[in-house]
């Protein structure tokens, strides 16, 4: 190879690569709107995006896995946390996390209420972008090696291929085993907020000893819901979280639970039955 041929090689390979890259870019533009649900980019979502930029969230967090690694990824956060929770959290993170325990805390961002709600709309739009099913397994903010959060079974509902290591459940399995699967695959996943280990409270209280606690609550005079037995109590806790509240500033505000509503619609009646059968084992 002489000098001239080497130059031709450099020019030709660059030229071809640029051309292919530009063609694919054009084709991507054709698809962006569908993949990102562009019709849902409302003025609120756009404003929420500006808020995201204005407060430099990207230099602590990642979104779509891009940003900084000091704080959790937020791509699917609205699938793990309800709106009420996120609003309260954004107002004052210190109410929810203890810097001495985790050695890290998100500083209070002093957002206006409008900024907070638009930001949540933006994050919700992000969570619905078709991004090849990433992350392959939900990324949780807290949780630890405990029954319920440790197992390799968490999988986003609806994603067709189960990641490696997962044990899929079938209709022949015990209803409680199927319920445990629902516990991890419901959207938002229950195990994003609840552990099943004694004392391990996360964004929601631990569900260890749920049955015993439910019996005690039903027997005491403080119960505010409509249930008459333990199973009814659990069902109510899932489909109408605010009917009776577990006390604590980090769990609810103004009588509204931070636990998301809507499981009654997003889960099928069988899934709900299985889930409750599973929860009723947590004595």
């Amino acid at each position, binding site marked *: 190879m*002489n000098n001239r041929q080497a130059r031709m090689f450099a020019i030709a390979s660059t030229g071809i690569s640029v051309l292919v890259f530009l063609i694919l870019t054009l084709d991507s533009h054709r698809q*962006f709107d569908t993949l*990102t649900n562009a019709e849902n980019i409302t003025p609120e979502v756009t404003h929420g995006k500006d808020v995201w930029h204005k407060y*430099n969230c*990207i*230099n602590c967090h990642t979104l779509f896995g891009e940003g900084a690694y000091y704080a959790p990824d937020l791509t699917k956060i609205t699938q793990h946390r309800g709106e009420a929770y996120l609003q309260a959290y954004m107002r004052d993170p210190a109410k929810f996390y203890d810097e001495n325990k985790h050695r890290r805390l998100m500083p209070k961002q002093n957002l206006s209420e409008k900024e907070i709600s638009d930001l949540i709309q933006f994050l919700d739009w992000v969570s619905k972008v078709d991004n090849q099913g990433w992350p392959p397994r939900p990324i949780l903010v807290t949780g*630890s090696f405990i029954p319920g959060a440790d197992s*390799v079974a968490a999988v986003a509902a609806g994603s067709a291929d189960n990641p490696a290591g997962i044990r899929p459940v079938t209709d022949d399995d015990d209803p409680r085993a199927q319920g445990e699967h629902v516990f991890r695959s419901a959207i938002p996943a229950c195990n994003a907020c609840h552990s099943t280990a004694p004392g391990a409270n996360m964004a929601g209280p631990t569900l260890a000893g749920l049955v015993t606690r439910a019996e005690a609550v039903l027997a005491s005079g403080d119960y505010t819901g409509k249930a008459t037995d333990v199973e009814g109590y659990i069902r109510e806790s899932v489909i109408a979280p605010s009917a009776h509240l577990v006390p604590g500033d980090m769990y609810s505000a103004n009588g509204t639970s931070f636990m998301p509503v809507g499981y009654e619609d997003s889960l099928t009646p069988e899934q709900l039955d299985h889930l409750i059968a599973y929860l009723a084992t947590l004595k």
Partner: protein
Amino acid sequence: MQYRSQSVAYWYFAVAMVLFGLQLVFGLLSASKYLGPDPLLYILPFDVTKVIHTNLLIVWVLTGFMGATYWMIPDESRTELHSTRLAYIQLFLWVIMGVTAIIGYLFRYGTGNKLLEQPLPHKIIIVICMLIFLYNIGMTIKKSGRFTTTEGVLMLGLVSSAVLFFPALLHYENYTVSIFYRWWTIHLWVEGVWMMIMGAFLAYLLIRLSGADREVMEKWLYVIVGLVFIAGILGTAHHYYWVGVPTYWLPIGGFFSALEPAALVAMAIYAYTAIRRSGLAHPNKLALHWTVGSAVFTLFGAGLLGLAHTWPSVNKWTHGTLITAMHGHAAFYGAYAMIVLAMITYALPSLTRHRPEGGSSIGYWAFWLQITGMFGMTLSFATAGIGQVYLERIMGMGYLDTQLKIQVHFLMLIATASIFTVGVALFIYDFFRFAPRFIFEDEPQLEAGVTRSTP
């Protein structure tokens, strides 16, 4: 120094040194926040220290590129610079831009877009500086009538860097689209056109430090250019996997970015054979250490550690973890920090008075401490990152709990970063230890390399 106007390079290098030192202060601050708790949570939170850390990096490396270019072009074209005045005006504007941007970041005044945080007025000044720079260099070459291949590759890198900055000036309504174009700037810079800049400096240094034949060196430089672009351009897709773009980018990104190390292997062989075949022709052995070190460390940080997580089925698990920080540090340092330090080390004996041509023992300590420190930092990020991937991504442990479990790696990070910082402090001390030559003296030929450069 053969041409009086080359002395502008000194001031560019001096600014780069100061900013490099500052970058590390903010880096160490950020690392200590990983350990936590953070007493400065409301004064200087992590997002502020991190944005200053990364921006200082970009600014000092670019300052170094400009200084090194102002040094190299007169040598290659055998002429004085078109205008030293313009070069100083450019430096002045550039410093004002940098300093005000950093002060702004302290108050969170920025665009909040990773690595492109500079506010619009600052971006416009950046463009103006680039234009002054390119004009000045272009006119110098034009007037001299001598345009070498090495210069050609350097100019290609510099002009394309300016062109690729334009997508960063635009506003995008759709977050996914804005990510798409952000990488046109960031990826195509570091894995495309900056490689041209690095390759040109490498060729320049090798031709001068070893006795390698220019004809041969420049032929292989073309081959490297071809390899970089074949793989690097479509390799952009390794940043497109999970951000909401069509699926075909996955195999494309995997395939082409896996080819990227080929160019880096070629560069390392290039440096090695030049020295092996032609031997040393220049007393500045320290500059040679930096030059070869840069090629080798790039192969390690960019080639090997980039390859480690570039395949989609791996990246799916490592994306957005400390694994990225591992690779980013080693790659950026090896390819761009080290090549600038190589150019500085090469030019310094003639830019300052009484400096030993072969480098001092302080200079060697600076080299080895930096190499050791950066290698240790890379290992710390790697072990932390592997822990994070397993615990958080695969086992499903919560983010905050995982970070607690990998604390020991953050301790290791701070320890090795301190070693690195000592190395950099020595380099900076060594830089400023000898006064610059303000007045050009009619000295006899200082550099053997200059006289022997063949056309």
